[in-house]
């Protein structure tokens, strides 16, 4: 039994942030499923983590950089770049019109 419920609005908001379209049925199903998952992961609050350093990488590496050089090894030709789309025009990808008067 989920102690924290997501509201339908929150589910819709998440879907919008993530650029996903959901059917009404999906919104409801996800509301239940996500709520129980959120409940489960909330378990972490049982732990005291004051003064613990967050670990977002496990390698312990730092300063892995590259020199400022051009390397044609991985360069893609225009054909290769466009190869996965049929509706390209004059070398560019076509997208739904963006209603802006500038970039």
């Amino acid at each position, binding site marked *: 039994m989920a102690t924290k419920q997501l509201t339908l609005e929150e589910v819709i908001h998440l879907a919008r942030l*993530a650029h996903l379209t959901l059917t009404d049925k999906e919104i409801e199903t996800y509301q239940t499923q996500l709520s129980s998952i959120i409940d489960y992961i909330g378990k*972490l609050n049982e732990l005291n983590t004051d003064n613990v350093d967050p670990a977002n990488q496990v390698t312990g590496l730092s300063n892995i950089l590259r020199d400022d050089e051009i390397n044609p090894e991985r360069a893609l030709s225009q054909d290769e770049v466009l190869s996965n789309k049929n509706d390209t025009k004059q070398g560019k990808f076509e997208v739904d019109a963006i209603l802006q008067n500038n970039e």
Partner: protein
Amino acid sequence: MQYYKIMNSNSLKVILEKLEKREITSVEITKQYLDEIKKKDSQINAFITVNDKALNEAKLADDKRQRGDKGVLLGVPIALKDVYSTRGLKTTAGSRVLENYIPPYDATAVKKLKQAGAVILGKTNLDAWAHGSSGENSDFGVTHNPYDLKSTPGGSSSGSAAAVASGMAPVAAGTDTGGSIRLPASFCNVVGLKPTYGRVSRYGIIAMGSSFDSIGHITQDVFSSALVLSVTGEIDPNDGTTGKVAVTQYHKLLGKPINGVKLGIIKEFMKEGLDSEIKKNFGKACKTLEDLGCEIVEISLPHVDYATSTYYILVPAEVSSNLGRMDGVRFGNSRDHFSAEAKRRVMIGTYTLSSGYYDAYYNKALKVRRLIINDFNNAFKSVDAIIAPTSPTPPFKLGEKLNEPLSMYLSDIYVCPMNLAGVPALSVPMEPAHNLPCGIQFVGRQFDENTIFNIAHAYEQARGDINLKLKI
């Protein structure tokens, strides 16, 4: 091939010897595997794409061998989990979003395998985007366990495990983010390696959890596993997380005696939830190791019970980020084509990263991850390696956990902690439980694959052949 023998015709030792002695050509052996695929795959569904250039590649390999080329995997057919970018060969990630995507480049791991002379058999099935533990989340149909067609082969490298187990490929590459090589390996009675995070380049492998994804492979035996790692391991300038430790010839360092080696059993794993027969088999495996001279002690990973929660905060967050590039602009279908599990993970990830929740979930999880890393580091102060069952349960039936995502996530409890810490782990078959495959994990320090290969190899030799019948 009906009973599992270690030194079977799918071991790389056997295959390479035959090729080197010219007893068989790469074309012949590749054709054999292609025939097996034709014969068996309609029942298993391990392959999404079979490489229609495989025989050409095999012919080229044979020509190279004639000219004296000495590639370590020259002429050896290999299957690749369909998250490995292969130039000119469709790469779907098991999802309708990429059902027609043809990468214009090879992943580094693929390049290395090709440079060593390997022949690409095809791309194997998987839980879409590697999200899953059963192979049931593929948009290209479910994969069946060759040892029980009604059971799951485990996931997410379901196709790779099933292919190797059923003799459709001698080696199949996979990825392990939270157990996705080891779990299917243990469900399918084969050897699965999750190398140290960063040992094998992730460049070109469709990313799931960027700080978790380990690039590994599935083989019939430990020697083959060690050999393949000596090929795929790399310090790659194109992947900033591959670090500075040189690759060794792992397969050449096997066979050292293991008496005096200290092994740790994780106290927190040996409790309720572990299937009693698996527990018994694990006990037998421990006895075998003790007979080989190992000392087995109990160790504690005090925070390991929180590993799964931590994992299911951090990985979906990285997933939600990594799947952002599937926008249909440059390649692929629109985001409407994502399946339910993918959408679920993306939304969870979006939630835990969103404004107001970052500290409570994501940042908190990063801290718990640190605690788990410390637990492993502490454990390795007193033992050389850690052993554990790979799965708390035998392979479950197809459909059994489909409607309970949480229950599905819990099948990862013995495997996902290793991904949190970035340590290497190798799953090797034990005696069957309930007449179904199960595996034992050997876990080592970061970049200490040599130790776990050596121990696992010794165990494998002592264990001998396994009396388990394929259902295909």
